[in-house]
């Protein structure tokens, strides 16, 4: 969080710079089967974020030391393309992308029925082609659609969305300016059918009341996003 609380981002009508109300999401579109050589794939645009996720497997896990005798392992990589940001991103892993890869893997391992595929590996490659704000949420949500597209059994899909605080107002789904100058960010990974959580992070400053409101905004948004995910998998219009 940049913490520049003096940048005015909510107008007198309570609307945000891009015209959204506090609980509104940016535009979302979801498309499956976009990587023809993969077993499952998904392209998700969310505002001007764009993620492409490919799933390969289950396949042989090598080197053998990564194999687990009783279950499959997920090999998750989150990566930002060099041209995805305003200043060019140097290629290769950095500490941020490694952490996001890890928490995404932890979230997805909580829902994939890993014990069905002992000693195998399922590879999930998340590529951020264009970044605005909230790329980890886009990546995790798109990954669960790609897993479903690959026919990997899961207890539920994961819907990931973040809420935060700008100018002391709790709002859902921060855009780039709001993320840069906002005061808090609360990304969550929600199982839409049960309301349970598999992913949670937060940074910034929220009172107990603000925190509860942000939590509720995320839960409400998850229901809407889930409908789009299901529609895309059924081949319907996800716009």
């Amino acid at each position, binding site marked *: 969080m940049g913490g520049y609380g003096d940048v005015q981002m909510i107008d007198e009508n309570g609307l945000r710079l891009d015209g959204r109300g506090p609980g509104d999401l940016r535009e979302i579109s979801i498309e499956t089967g*976009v*990587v*023809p*050589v*993969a077993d499952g794939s998904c392209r998700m645009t969310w505002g*001007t974020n*764009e993620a*492409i*996720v*490919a799933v*390969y497997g289950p*396949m042989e896990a090598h080197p053998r030391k990564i194999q687990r005798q009783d279950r499959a392992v997920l*090999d998750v*990589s989150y*990566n930002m*393309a*060099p*041209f*995805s*940001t*305003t*200043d*060019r991103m140097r*290629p*290769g892993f950095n500490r941020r992308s490694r952490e996001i890869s890890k928490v995404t893997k932890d979230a997805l391992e909580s829902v994939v029925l890993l014990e069905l595929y002992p000693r195998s590996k399922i*590879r999930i*490659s*998340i*590529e951020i*082609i*264009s*970044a605005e704000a909230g790329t980890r949420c886009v990546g995790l949500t798109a990954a669960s659609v790609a897993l479903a597209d690959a026919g990997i059994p899961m207890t539920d899909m994961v819907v990931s969305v973040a809420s935060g605080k700008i100018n002391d107002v709790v709002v859902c789904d921060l855009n780039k300016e709001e993320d840069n100058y906002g005061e808090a960010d609360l990304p969550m990974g929600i199982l839409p059918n049960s309301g349970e959580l598999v992913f949670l992070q937060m940074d910034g400053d929220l009172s107990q009341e603000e925190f509860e409101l942000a939590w509720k905004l995320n839960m409400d948004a998850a229901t809407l996003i889930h409908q789009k995910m299901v529609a895309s998998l059924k081949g319907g219009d996800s716009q």
Partner: protein
Amino acid sequence: MTIPIVPNLLRAHLKELAENDCRIDGRQRWEGRALDVEAGVLPRAEGSARVRMGDTIVFAGVKFQVMKPYPDRPNQGGLMCSAEVRSVAGRHWEAGPPSPEAIELGRVVDRGIRESGCIDVDSLCIIPGEKAWQVILDLYAISDDGNLFDAFALAGIVALRSAVVPAERFEIGEDYPLGVSKTPIMCSYQKVGARFIYDACGREELGGDERIHITLGDDDNVHSLQKGLKGIFTTDEFKEIMDHARDRTKELREVVESLL
């Protein structure tokens, strides 16, 4: 990149098809796959393109940085071209530092663009000896079903030709289009079952032998050549390929011109 095991059955099948003048996906020997090229597809890049050739899909993005000119060329900017094939693009591409295959891809495309002289490096100078633009072309594969070379080269030149120098953001005057005066085009051939074919698909690459890449400029001048993988070829075979490349690069150049 992990080299997949090549089934002998696939090699035998490809050989038999070649003897009957057929290809595994039903194409003619010199026929390319369905081509789709789009410019300006990446919102954060200063120039961009997406190319789809059959099931091969790539992006190219152009970014700019301000660099200090090299001491021996104080009046010139620079061009950097890098190719990445990450694990998203196919099951045999692994995570980790760039593989020799990905490095070869980037370097061959780089040579074709650089040596054609399509970018006037003198025009990239801002303050001689102190500041110049560095043009960075990033090639990024999304789906690898063979012939990433041609897809990268085509996406690369379209992205460069659509690029705008972001001078305003760097507070160095107004934005202006990057001057790209020529359109170098690459054509790649692979020997499959004892004969060269154009635009190999993934299975032809897997069961094929050596490949040859040719980049030709607007006036048919040769700007880069590369022979890759194990295999032996004759002068006559090369002449046959070159004859095809002269015609095909003209067709592809027209596709590029129609977009911009």
